[in-house]
């Protein structure tokens, strides 16, 4: 069973994503911010981390910076999901070890599950971060 850590501070989104992911049989663990995620990662290993960026206590980039997952949990895949669209932020997320970057407002429940499964099974860094599914539909 796919074990996933959902790091999201917005309750409305957290609950929605939890329902979506659980309905597909994914084992979902919750952290409310980067600091809590950091603690959880020290005691447990996850297949995928679904990581929000703008959070209190410790933000997504701060978490990636401190968790050093490449050393501590090399098998863990990180999907950064945010509603921030600036190129700088996207680049930063990849530089800090994200395997994928998705725009929250872009993903329907099915697409979210598809992205999680795709990232889980792929080798690192061979995904195109700028494909239509990974960025907002532009029109």
């Amino acid at each position: 069973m796919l074990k996933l850590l959902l790091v999201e501070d917005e309750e409305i989104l957290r609950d929605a994503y939890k329902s979506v992911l659980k309905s597909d049989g994914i084992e979902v663990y919750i952290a409310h911010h980067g600091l809590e995620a950091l603690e959880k990662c020290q005691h447990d290993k996850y297949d995928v981390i679904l990581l929000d960026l703008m959070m209190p206590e410790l933000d997504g980039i701060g978490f990636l910076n401190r968790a050093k997952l490449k050393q501590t949990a090399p098998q863990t895949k990180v999907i950064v999901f945010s509603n921030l669209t600036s190129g700088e932020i996207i680049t930063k997320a990849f530089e800090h070890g994200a395997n994928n970057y998705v725009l929250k407002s872009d993903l329907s429940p099915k697409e979210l599950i598809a992205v999680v499964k795709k990232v889980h099974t792929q080798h690192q860094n061979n995904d195109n971060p700028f494909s239509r599914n990974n960025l907002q539909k532009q029109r």
Partner: protein
Amino acid sequence: LFNGDHALSHKTKYAIQKDNVSQTDQIERYRLLVESIQDYAIFLLDPAGNVASWNAGAKRFKGYNKEEIIGKHFSVFYPQEDVLRGKPQRVLNEAKKFGRVEDEGWRIRKDGTRFWADVVVTALYEEDGTLRGFAKVTRDLTERKHMEDELVRANTQLKHQQEELTILNQVKDEFISLASHQLRTPATGVKQYLGLLLQGFLGDMPKEQKEILEKAYASNERQIELINDLLRIAQLDAGKIILKKAPIDITNVLKDVIAEQNDSFKKRQQNIEIQVPPKAIVANIDSRRFRMVLDNLVDNASKYTPNGGEIKVSLKHHDGCLCIEIRDNGVGIKEEDISKLFTKFTRIGNMLSDEVGGSGLGLYWANKVVQLHNGYIEVESKVDKGTKFSVIIPRGESNA
């Protein structure tokens, strides 16, 4: 008739008389001239700097009568701070050294008020080289000074206002950026919950209910698109878009864009045709943003073409330029509307525009991005026949 002798003696006599008159008269005329000049203070100083003569202009500027100022040291005309710094003596020393010295600065009238003066002091020497004194010519430039000061003040104020505007503009950009982000969160929540119901995560539902939910979902999607557009435009207008150019095969970009929209073409039963050269065409572009531009144009072509229509996409290159054409046989654009296409918040009315929806920002943004690539977009269109958008950009430094 005069004889020659008489004429000669008369002429000589007259010349002698004239000479005598000019000796005394000219000095008097000269004195009168200088003394009556109103627009310049012209007066003499003795070698020690005491006032030795006075004219109407001097009286007018400085307020002293001739009787009360003659014999007084000219430092009375200087503000106290200048006197303390020894400026009057310095002026005389420089005039002695260089023959002439010019200076601008504040001077004091008899009543204590200040005026801005332009002063020229010239040292006067006897034929044997001894200093006889100084000629001092002063102009009152107070009005000019006030105008200059006013200009400087206005300029400072303008700079200040400009700085304030820059800050306000930054605040506006930050506000739009933050607001867009915050607005997306609840819309994203709605999308997930509606998606859970619509995509059957909680079981089937009656057709009528599903249709209502589909409308709610589509409405929410439109809101998300509007927020996204608003944010992109805010970034663009703030000049925050810096292209990240890299050599990339544009044929692949084009194929990707079309492949990703395949579902839309299928849904509308539209035929899509793509013509690209067999070889890779590498251009130096910001691939992410350029992909969005093409995505936007192809998407528009599909949306503004009725079901069953045709869309043709082609890529040509010529003389270091790339031309990407997106042609449809859709509703077309009226001639008078073509010029409005690339303006912000403009939506052109036609039989499909209500159905399509949109913010009127897509083409504005696309055009700007193409311009940032030193290119341009061309439009040809006929109502009910179709539209052709051509994106023309230089391939850039890389010609691999």
